[in-house]
């Protein structure tokens, strides 16, 4: 966006500031409004699953103003702090969590193409998002420690153990689409899956199919959702790490949690489910691409944004569905699930996907279909057995990398 503004002859510093403000505004709204929506949805979904109506009183038939009412309640609530608490850390902890959750959105693209809808177009976006999401646990630990309450401490410790464990299979699973696409650039990964659901990486081969489910499990665990919500197990630990929190600080934790859910769901949809590309290439079919003009592409991207948000919401809904369906696991079962099942399955799937990719480099949809010919230069970076002549020197690789104009993140800084 900044480049776009600079191209329109606006002062760079103003352009950057404007772009940053717009991005921050959009993302904050996404997380905050998203949280509002999700909390309401959670209640409705749980209600429906338990064969009742859910909130109905506030805001008419669907109770759609319920969360807003909750928000007002939380805002007006007294902000308490335990006596023995470490005041500094206690106050800081919710913001750490929220910041981590929000920063993840910074690198998530909502639409691709020549002018992708992304706040920070990173070359290593996958890594960045996983790393930043991992930071969320830090806020939880600080909260648990600073509360000077054993329930909080227990919750935080469990959370630490759980998240540290689940980051391993999560990372392994996320690497599989990276491997297939040959890049960690999420825009690139998403655009590789354009053209229909058969191009989605979840259907790329049997291993990615397995990987997707493992990824979703681990993502559920790493954002502390049931059945892995040991950190706030209310039946054992009162409310876990946020026992001592109330008011707005408490709601920050919840916004962080729903934000993280949305973030991992969006990541899942970009990595595996085609991102902003629909199951059928309707937008492209209508000619909504940047080749036909900027505003055509922009319209296509808006469509794509709606698409990916829908996918994200579906992902979150599935998490809710799981939460209200499955009982909570014990901590040893949680760790067992991770170390004895998820990690080996992810490792095997990784290996299998590697071999598959090696054996059938240009096939999609379980190897049944030929990949749509795309002139992605990154293909030549990886030693592609089919297209690369045997005597090709690696000299060309750097040139190719230059040519592809994968903007290094420093690009977004200047």
């Amino acid at each position, binding site marked *: 966006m900044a480049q776009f503004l600079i191209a329109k002859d606006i002062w760079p510093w103003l352009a950057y500031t404007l772009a940053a403000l717009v991005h921050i505004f959009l993302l904050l709204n996404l997380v905050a409004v998203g949280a509002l929506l999700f909390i309401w949805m959670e209640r409705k979904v749980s209600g429906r699953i338990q064969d009742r109506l859910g909130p109905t009183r506030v805001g008419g038939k669907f109770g759609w103003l319920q969360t807003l009412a909750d928000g007002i309640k939380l805002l007006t609530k007294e902000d308490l702090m335990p006596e023995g608490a470490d005041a500094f850390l206690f106050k800081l902890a919710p913001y750490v969590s929220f910041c981590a959750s929000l920063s993840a959105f910074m690198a998530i693209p909502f639409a691709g193409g020549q002018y992708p809808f992304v706040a920070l177009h990173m070359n290593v976006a996958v890594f960045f998002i996983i790393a*930043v999401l991992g930071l969320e646990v*830090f806020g939880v630990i600080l909260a648990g420690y600073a509360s000077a309450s054993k329930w909080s*401490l227990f919750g935080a410790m469990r959370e630490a153990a759980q998240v*540290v464990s689940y980051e391993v299979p999560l990372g392994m699973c996320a690497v599989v689409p990276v491997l297939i696409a040959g890049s960690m650039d999420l825009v690139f990964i998403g655009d590789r899956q354009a053209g229909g659901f058969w191009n989605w990486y979840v259907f790329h081969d049997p291993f990615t199919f397995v990987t997707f489910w493992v990824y979703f499990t681990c993502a559920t665990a790493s954002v502390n959702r049931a059945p892995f919500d040991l950190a706030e197990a209310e039946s054992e630990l009162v409310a876990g790490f946020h026992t001592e929190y109330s008011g707005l600080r408490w709601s920050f934790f919840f916004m962080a949690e729903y934000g993280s859910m949305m973030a991992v769901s969006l990541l899942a949809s970009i990595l595996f489910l085609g991102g902003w590309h629909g199951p059928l290439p309707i937008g492209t079919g209508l000619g909504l691409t940047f080749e036909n003009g900027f505003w055509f592409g922009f319209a296509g991207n808006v469509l794509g944004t709606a698409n990916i948000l829908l996918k994200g919401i579906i992902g979150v809904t599935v998490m809710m569905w799981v939460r209200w369906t499955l009982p909570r696991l014990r901590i040893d079962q949680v760790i067992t699930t991770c170390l004895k099942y998820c990690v080996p399955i992810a490792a095997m799937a990784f290996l299998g996907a590697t071999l598959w990719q090696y054996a059938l480099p240009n096939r999609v949809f379980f190897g049944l279909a030929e990949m749509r010919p795309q002139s992605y230069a990154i293909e030549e970076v990886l030693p592609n057995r089919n297209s690369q002549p045997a005597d090709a020197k690696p000299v060309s*690789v750097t040139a190719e990398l230059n040519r592809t104009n994968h903007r290094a993140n420093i690009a977004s800084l200047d």
Partner: protein
Amino acid sequence: MSDPIYWPSFFFLLFAGIACAFAIAVVVSSNIVRMAFYLVMSLAATAGLFFVAGADFVGSMQVLIYVGGTLVLLVFGVMLTSQDRFISMKTSRFELGMAAGVGACLFLLLLFAAWSVPEWRSLSREQVDAIALEPTATPLGMALLGARVDAPESPDVAGYLLVFEIISVHLLVVLVGAAYLARAKRKGSAIAE
């Protein structure tokens, strides 16, 4: 259209300030959990410095491994050993003074070293703007697998496959070793005091 502020420098200053401030806070603080928190902030800011220096992959790795992994482990340790008397342990004033003196000497020395080589000073703005942007993840990965795509003109630049393997094995050994060291002791092993 030129800009009065050179933005990378601005971000450098920002991150450097955060990193240094929190690093000093780590030293000054006596509460172990706060120290860990300051350290995280310092390391995260260092990651930002990496980004500014064009090392995006390493920066992400820094966040992922150091901040996400190492420090969670550290905090874990804090939890396991957290009793009030260990959270903050005071050192004697003499020792602090001594350390401050020595540290100042060391810092001056390093400053002197950093500033004494003219080639280490900045480039001009035009020179930096002329440098093409290059992603680092792929060349790094290739280098770890033994192929240096970043330096094709000098074929004798070494790849790092062996180092990579050694470190992998090392990590495995370390994991096994750590699990062994931290394992629950058998019954009857005497606890001192």
